[in-house]
């Protein structure tokens, strides 16, 4: 019989401390399960959008029921990304009993629009909550019901409450004030505005901050101002294209799994799905997120200065037919991607060198 002997309180906090230091490993365990979902959903969505005409109203599926179906399947696979990421981050920390709270927390992150960063928070929360509950001394006769009943119920309640009340509600307020702030910004210096838009688009790759910038650009199209969406459209594709390019340029710096994710990211970038960059950002947020923000900002500024206008509420090279000043648009994307690819590979080379020296 395997018995986990109850430990005194001092050991728990020491164990938890060790866990916090291991956060990167937990993120990677979540990412490794999430990558196939991103790849599957992204490729299906990319294929569907690529095979229908691009119009000023976005991709037009009215004459292509088959591609609409492919799009819908891809969208479902994609929507599982955040729950799977959160679920398996929790799994990495607390093993099987962590799965329920992780998946529930991740699904709530989807629902409240907290994006993949919300999913990471949910996964870590769920993992630590369950890890802690598992350490509680429990009478022998209760032990069988702990992992299938008590732990899932208590941990889902705790994580769900935190995700809805503490994370979900403020996100709504923050999005509203960000939108208002952008509206004010848009009357000022357009280069500063482009830097802000590009950074926001890249920051959480389809999460709330990204959506604020995107919806702002889309709303401006209706006002007859195509330049805002033009700056967003370039920024949208730069994180996945730039990171995909990085895996091609610096093969040795990336694992085989990451190189596969790189090809999927390139495909998603081509049709304007920023989420293709998420596997990279979730695995190494501290290096990747600032890098892609810089790259997207560069792309947005060049697009703004080059007079790029985008008539469709969509981004990436796929919208080229409905873009004004196409050459400037392509230059903006290429420049942003180069910034991302060169910077992230330099950072990784530096980190690898430092690790080698320390070893």
């Amino acid at each position, binding site marked *: *019989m*395997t018995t*986990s002997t109850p430990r005194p309180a001092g050991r728990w906090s020491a164990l938890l401390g060790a866990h916090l230091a291991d956060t990167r490993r937990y993120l990677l365990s979540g990412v490794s399960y999430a990558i196939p979902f991103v790849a599957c959903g992204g490729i299906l969505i990319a294929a569907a959008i690529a095979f229908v005409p691009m119009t000023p109203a976005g991709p037009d599926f009215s004459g292509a029921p088959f591609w609409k179906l492919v799009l819908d399947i891809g969208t479902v696979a994609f929507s599982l990304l955040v729950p799977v990421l959160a679920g398996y981050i929790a799994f990495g920390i*607390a*093993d*099987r*009993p962590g799965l329920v709270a992780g998946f529930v927390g991740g699904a709530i992150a989807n629902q409240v629009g907290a994006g993949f960063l919300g999913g990471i928070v949910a996964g870590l929360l769920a993992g630590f909550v369950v890890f802690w509950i*598992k350490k509680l001394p429990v009478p022998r006769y209760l032990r*069988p*019901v*702990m*992992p*299938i009943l008590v732990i899932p119920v208590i941990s889902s309640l705790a994580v769900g409450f935190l995700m809805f009340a503490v994370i979900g509600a403020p996100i709504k307020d923050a999005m509203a004030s960000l939108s208002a702030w952008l509206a004010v910004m848009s009357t000022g210096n357009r280069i500063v505005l482009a830097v802000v838009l590009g950074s926001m688009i890249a920051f959480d790759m389809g999460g709330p901050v990204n959506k604020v910038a995107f919806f702002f650009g889309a709303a401006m199209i209706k006002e007859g101002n195509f330049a805002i969406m033009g700056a967003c459209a370039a920024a949208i594709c730069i994180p996945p294209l730039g990171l995909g390019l990085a895996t091609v340029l610096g093969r040795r710096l990336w694992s085989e799994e990451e190189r596969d994710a790189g090809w999927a990211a390139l495909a998603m970038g081509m049709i304007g799905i920023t989420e293709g960059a998420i596997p990279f950002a979730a695995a190494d947020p501290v290096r990747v997120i600032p890098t892609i923000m810089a790259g997207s900002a560069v792309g947005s500024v060049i697009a703004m200065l080059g007079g790029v206008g985008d008539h469709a509420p969509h981004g990436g090279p796929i919208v080229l037919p409905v873009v004004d000043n196409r050459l400037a648009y392509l230059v903006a994307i290429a420049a942003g991607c180069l910034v991302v690819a060169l910077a992230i590979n330099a950072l990784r080379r530096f980190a690898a060198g430092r690790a080698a020296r320390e070893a």
Partner: protein
Amino acid sequence: MRIVAVTACPTGIAHTYMAAAQLEKAARRLGHEIKVETQGAMGIENQLSASDIAQADLVVLAAGIAVRERERFAGKRIVEVPVQDAIKDPDRVLSASGA
């Protein structure tokens, strides 16, 4: 003889642990050393270390579901039985395995 074993059942709350206890008892009775890893609803407990596995003469997998991290046992002599057999007649599981 040194034995390592993994037990796992679909629900992971009772049979996994019963099989583990039975295998431990039987091994002791027959004079073998055994370490049993359980893969139940709590996840992996009493995990087999690399050296446990390296030193083992025999690997017994008593499972009703796929055993996690099975690649650890590559190259070892592996005997697979239904988890029920390990509960009902652990002695026979071990002796039929050549232990």
